[in-house]
Structures are given as C-alpha cells and as structure tokens.
C-alpha cells in the first residue's frame, strides 16, 4: 500500500508516457481494456467533396492583384504610425503589463437603501500594486484565467506574481473568498503568519490586524505552511493560523463544541503547558472517525511521549496502512505519515509534495 501511494505521489511517469518504472496496476488495467481498443485505423473510401472554386470571391480577386495589397499595406502603416503619434502625445498613463488582473470595484451608495444597482468601476491591477477596499466597497478580481477572488470590505491585498505557472498574492488583512480551477499549487496566498496553497478548491480566508487568521474550505482542499508546520484543510474543515506559531490544527466544523474549543486552546497555548495537555486529552477523547484529520496533524505537534497516545487513538479510528510501522510514525517518518494521510482519503498528499518541491526551487531562485 505504501508503495502504491509513493508512486501516486510522484506523478506516476509510467501513467504519463509509459516511461519510468512500470506500474503493475496500470499494466493490468491496460491489458484488461485492450479488447476495447480501436481495431481498424484504415480509412473508409471518403466521397469526393466539391468545395467549389476558392478564389471566386470578388475581394479575393482584388487581393490577387499585387498592387492593391501593397497600397493597402502602405495606408495601414501610415495609419498605425499616425495613431501611435497621437497616443504618445496624449497625457501619458502608467505603463501596463499584460500580467495584470482585472478588478471590478463595487461601491455602496452612502445613502443607499440596498436597492438598485451599486456603482461599479473596472480597473487593472498590476504586479506590485495594492488593492484596498474601504468600509463600503467590495471587489471582484479575475485571477488571470484560473479563477476568481472576492474581497470583502476593509481588505488589503497585494499582487506579487502572475506568471504562467504561479499566481501569488499577499493578504495583509481582511477577508477573501477564493475559487480556483487551475492545477493544484498554482495559486498561493502569503499571509503574515503562513503561506496558503490552493490544491484545487474554493475557500474563505480571513486575516486580522494582529496577523492571526482563519481559513474555511468549501470545496477541494487547501494547504497551510509556515515554520516547518503544515496543515491540510479539506472541504468542510477549517483551521486557524497564528502570527507567532503559524498554522493551527485543522478540524471539521461539524465536530462537537468541546472538541473545537479544545483545538483552539491547543493552538493558542504554549507547548508543555498544563492547559495544552488538558486540551490534548479532550481532543483524543472526543475524536470521531473523521476527526482523524485533526489527530493526524496532532502527531507532529506533540512531544514524543504524548505522540504514543495520539498514535493509539488514531490507529483505533483509521488503521495505519500496510508498510507503516508504529516506530516509523513515532519518529515522524515522512513517507509513512504521507501514507497514513492518504488512507484518510481527504486528498492525495502527492499533490502537496509536488508543490513543495517546486516551491522550494522557486524560493531558492528568489534568494
């Protein structure tokens, strides 16, 4: 089982182009399905189609005269030159790159009753620019051609990067609603306390003035990363992020009130404190099957002694997959932890590892 997930995690090259180490499961599928393959690639006798003469149009006849197109081209060049001259003499506007995002700002009327159309303004947002909404305005951003962002009032964000494989913004404060349909890992949000990576999803992210924040996933899943901690938040789950300590434990929002309070207490108290220990006990006691999500994250955030209890509880809910050992998990072996994550069936961690490798390369390049 662990081999299977490792293969998945590395974007199986055999699946891609038949190269690399053959995947026995895919080979099996290929053999089984071969009987459905197209058997005959010999074309039938296609009837002759009379398309009629192509140069029968009057404008083509004119175009075939070599002097007319030359004359037309000369006029076009002259017109282009004149327009360029006129535009360059007009009041200059800031240069625009084609990497900008189009923004639709909506301002509420000061005396509006909430009825009727609100005035809208369209602008183009360029790399390095800041977009800020006030108490009465909201904004809608088309994220290149990969998704949409909605900004609530009192939100401030900066556009850091917009290239073919990566779109990156910084959210300084406020709330954004994100819907992205690009391949996982392409859209990244920097917050004061962590980096938020889209893994194919819709989510809402709120950042307070203090730098603390909260993320709630509606569809797909999202990755949080900071200070060597990672948190994965699947649909229906949420997680806090803290300016001092980075991403908190993710939890399903339908968990009991006690469980959620314990998660918040665990995140906001210091390691080794009595409050944290008590919170940990409540989390272990109250965890349901799907709260394996929280327990899996808890494994890497507690001391080695406490980790044993977390291991026992998680393995009672979701047995560790074949190839995963107790000792390996207790020493936080990454490939075993990854296998166990995949067994939770909340998203393929291979996507995250793929992103992580590209991100590390990107960060190194930036430095």
């Amino acid at each position: 089982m662990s081999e299977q997930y490792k293969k998945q995690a590395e974007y199986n090259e055999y699946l891609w182009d038949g190269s690399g180490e053959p995947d026995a499961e895919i080979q099996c599928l290929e053999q089984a399905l071969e009987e459905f393959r197209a058997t005959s690639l010999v074309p039938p006798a296609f009837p002759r189609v009379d398309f009629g003469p192509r140069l029968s149009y009057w404008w083509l006849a004119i175009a075939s005269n070599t002097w007319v197109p030359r004359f037309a081209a000369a006029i076009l060049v002259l017109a282009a030159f004149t327009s360029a001259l006129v535009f360059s003499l007009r009041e200059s506007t800031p240069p625009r790159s084609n990497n900008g995002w189009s923004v639709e700002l909506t301002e509420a009327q000061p005396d509006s009753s909430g009825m009727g159309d609100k005035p809208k303004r369209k602008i183009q947002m360029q790399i390095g620019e800041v977009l800020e909404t006030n108490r009465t305005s909201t904004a809608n951003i088309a994220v290149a051609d990969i998704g949409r962002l909605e900004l609530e009032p009192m939100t401030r964000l900066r556009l850091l990067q917009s290239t073919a494989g990566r779109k990156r913004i910084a959210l300084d404060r406020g709330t954004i609603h994100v819907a992205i349909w690009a391949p996982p890992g392409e859209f990244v949000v920097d917050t004061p306390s962590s980096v938020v990576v889209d893994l194919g999803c819709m989510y809402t992210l709120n950042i307070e003035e203090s730098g603390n924040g909260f993320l709630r996933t509606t569809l797909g899943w999202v990755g949080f990363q900071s200070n060597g901690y990672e948190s994965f938040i699947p649909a229906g789950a949420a997680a806090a992020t803290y300016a001092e300590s980075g991403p908190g434990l993710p939890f399903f929002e339908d968990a009991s009130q006690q469980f959620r309070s314990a998660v918040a207490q665990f995140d906001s108290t210091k390691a080794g404190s009595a409050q944290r220990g008590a919170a940990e006990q409540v989390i272990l006691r109250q965890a349901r099957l799907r709260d394996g999500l929280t327990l899996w994250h808890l494994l890497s955030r507690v001391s080695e002694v406490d980790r044993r209890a977390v291991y026992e509880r998680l393995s009672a809910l979701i047995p560790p997959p074949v190839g995963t050992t107790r000792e390996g998990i207790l020493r936080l072996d990454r490939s075993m932890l990854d296998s166990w994550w995949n067994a939770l069936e909340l998203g393929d961690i291979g996507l995250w590892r793929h992103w992580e490798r590209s991100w590390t390369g990107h960060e190194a390049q930036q430095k």
Partner: protein
Amino acid sequence: MEAVSLRNAAMQSRLDFRSRVLEHLLVTESQVGLPDSDATFVRAAQRGDTEAFGQLYRRYARMVHGILLGRVRHVEVEDLVQEVFLRALPRVRELRDASRFGSWLAAIARNLAIDYYRRSQTRPGRTDDAFDPDEQPAKSNLSSSGDAVEILDCIRILPEAYRETLILRLVEGMTGPEISARTGLSPGSVRVNLHRGMHQLRRKLAHRELRNVSNSKNRTMV
C-alpha cells in the same frame, strides 16, 4: 575468412542500427504526430484532397474512438468513428486554424455521441442500449470479459475530462504527450486529468471490489 566475418558483422550491426532509427522515426511519427504535417494534411483536405483526409483519419481515429467509447456502447463505436469523419469532411473547409483540427474533431465526436444518445432515447421500443454518462452505465458488451466491462463502466462514470483522458491512455494506449498533441489540451491539464482520474478510478474499483465481496458473502449465506 575472419576478416570477412568481421566485416559482415559490422555491416549487420549498421543495418540493425539503421532499422532501429527508422523504426523509432516511424513510431514517433505515428504516435506523437507532427503538428506541422497535420496542418499540411488539413490544408490539403480543405482543397478537397480525400487522400490527405485519409491520413488525418489514420492519425485521429484512435482519439475519436476513445472519446466515443466513453459515451456510447462499445459495439456501436467503430461505425460512429466513421460517421464522425464523414460529418467532418464537408465542414473541414470551415476550419480556419488548421492547427486546431484535433479539438475541432473532438467536439464533433462529442456532439455525435449526444445525438446518438438522443436518437436512441426517442427510438420506439427503445431498450436501454445507450450509455448515459449521468446514469449508472448498462453492461454494454456481453462478449467482453466481465472484468474489462466492470473497469470500463467505472471509467465511464468519472467526470468527463478524466474519463476521456483515461480512456485514451488506458484503452487506446496513447501517451500523455500524444493525448495533448491530439486533443489540443495543454500537457499540464492532461497530466492532472490522468493523475486525478486514476486516483478516482482506484477508489471506484476498490469500492466495487468490496461490494462484490459482500454480495458473494451474502450469496453464500443464502
């Protein structure tokens, strides 16, 4: 005597190398296709050259077959492949960008599959022959082995993007780069579709396996 045999061996080795190179070129040409030569054939077909259109058939029949197989009964697919090309032939002149032939042809195939499905629904005395991607698919080919039909059924209920890409890869034996070149999808999209589709297929197959095991247990108890 020894010199002669050495010379013969050297000549044989050169011939082997040459045949390997030729074989490689043929495989590359037939599997990946060269967009430029596709465009040349498309332009020739637009001038009424049916030979050139035949070449396009050889290159794209597998893709069309795969797209149709994801939507209609296996036994109908071969006929429908020809129908797709017969539909495309008189309209190929309307295609402005010759390099988009693959995606244009794929759209025709998808539309034909929809037409086929509608026709079979309105046909009097219709039995549930046609495959509706939104429903659980009917067992389509009784002559096929049970496992293969089960697997194909599982692929057919995947979302469209995953379904097509997986069928082209697993059934038609096309590689990712070839799927990208033929369908006009970006290599990145094909890669993601293959990966996610395979992930979903694994889950569906595992689910079916569990169900079959529990059914067989029930039968034993009865």
